[in-house]
């Protein structure tokens, strides 16, 4: 089976413009997370779409779904965890409780605050996850990437043609992800910034799917202003 997993477990906002998590801020006329969820709903290949939401905001999310989308068995809300990967594993736990475990299960994880994801990216993630087991969505780096080990001086400048910016969706064969994660030490787990790194740390190949620069992650106030301008929404000064 194929599952969507929209990750909205956080409560923080680096924007400081609202007392609610950024995924619930309006983009155009509705919350960012609904744009993302609706795009996932248009992919008929999903058997179920999970949304991992911070426990404090579960009821709010449930109300939004009822108001904007209506009654549907296709969406399931689960409490988010303390970080990104624990939210993913909360979702996987629920999948295995409800649908049972299977070597065939695929999960397409996606940031709630990337509403500009396209159906093409989702479809290519599913196809590549079925074939390769682990997939990341990336966009070629536009800026030159510089490395600094001390935060003061440049230690190296890698060849930009080999640099990509990681986006989401990130998609996995569920059993593969579980087994790789179980194999990590606690120290290794502390270094994880995203789910693909679980595979990379254990040298499991991760296939790349082409993202685009519009698939931005709305994290800061400037991201939010750009996103609002892109959809013709009200830009906050």
């Amino acid at each position, binding site marked *: 089976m194929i599952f969507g997993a929209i990750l909205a477990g956080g409560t923080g906002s680096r924007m400081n413009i609202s007392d609610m998590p950024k995924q619930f801020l309006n*983009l155009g*006329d509705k919350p960012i997370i609904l744009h993302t969820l609706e795009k996932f*709903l*248009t992919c008929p290949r999903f058997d179920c779409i999970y949304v991992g939401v911070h426990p404090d905001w579960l009821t709010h999310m449930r109300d939004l779904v009822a108001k904007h989308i209506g009654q549907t068995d296709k969406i399931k809300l689960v409490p988010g965890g303390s970080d990104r990967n624990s939210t993913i594993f909360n979702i996987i736990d629920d999948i295995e409780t409800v649908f049972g475990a299977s070597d065939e299960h695929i999960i397409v994880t996606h940031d709630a605050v990337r509403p500009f994801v*396209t159906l093409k990216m989702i479809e290519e993630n599913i196809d590549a996850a079925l074939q390769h087991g682990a997939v990341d969505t990336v966009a070629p780096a536009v800026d030159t990437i510089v490395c600094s080990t001390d935060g003061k001086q440049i230690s190296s400048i890698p060849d930009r043609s080999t640099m990509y910016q990681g986006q989401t969706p990130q998609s996995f064969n569920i059993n593969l992800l579980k087994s790789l994660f179980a194999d990590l030490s606690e120290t290794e787990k502390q270094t994880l910034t995203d789910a693909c790194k679980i595979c990379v740390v254990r040298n499991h190949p991760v296939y790349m799917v082409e993202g685009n620069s*519009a698939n931005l992650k709305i994290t800061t106030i400037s991201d939010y202003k750009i996103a609002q301008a892109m*959809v013709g929404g009200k830009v906050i000064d």
Partner: protein
Amino acid sequence: MINYVYQLVSPKVFSIKYEDISFGDKVIVRPNYMAICHADQRYYLGQRDIKVLNKKLPMALIHECCGKVVYDPTGTFSVGQRVVMIPNTPVRHDDVIFENYDKSSYFLSSGHDGFMREYVDLPPDRIVPYSGIEDPVAAITEFISVAVHASVRFDRAAHPIRRRIAIWGDGSLSYTVANVLKKTFPKTEICVIGMDIRKLSHFSFVDQTYLSGEIPDSFTADHCFECCGGAGSPYAIDDIIRYINPQGTVILMGVSENKVAINTRDILEKGLTFVGSSRSGRADFERAVELLGNKDFEDRMRVIISQDRPVCSIKDILRVFANDLTTPFKTVFKWNM
């Protein structure tokens, strides 16, 4: 949901508009295959009047398209169902005036965004389902519906003597009109007059074909269809007035950017009726889908389709429009954006 709309912003330049579409009362369709029309090509090349371009662009092109339903709050269609989309959008019903001529109607890809989008949201009555038809052929249903509409206008306007109908033009429109007329009026002789012997050789199902310079002096037709448009219009209309029998009906279908001088003396003398026919409505789409259910009809339409490689990027959009200029009939491509 954020929808990607691929708009022509100026000749040969595309950009993306991001628009919010709601899960409201409209059906959401994922475009699958598209076909290029001459009207799209004129916008793409900047061959429309500059005032028209300034008024209508930016705009998504393409009004010939089939797709799959991805969401339908109305319950009219099932998810995954194959459909064709009607670009004409009436805002009222009139018992006399066809929806495609009503001044209040608008047309997607003429002043409003056409189908070059990630998703298209339409009311259920602007969508016609199909099955058993190959998707690349279904992509030109709108084009066929235009020919169907012309045959309906003809049937209503023309007197009942219909021994022979002559069609001027040897392009896609002429071919499609001939195919529709042959099915709709099987007892009528269909004759096609064109300029290009290679193109005329495709019309294997009609009764006669002639090069325009080799029409026999004795040739006559009870009624005629003008399917040339452009620079060929004045010559075709002049020929039609010369060869048509008295009180015949002439269906004008070709688009010309320039005004055309016509021989009114002979129109009056012969008592001719001229009927303009453009675009189509839902009933024409339904008839077009019905016609495509006939294997011979579908096979004949497939002959004029040049299938280009899938479109996966804006660069690919530029490629299919460039390639369309080199294909003799219709260019169809899979939409993978």
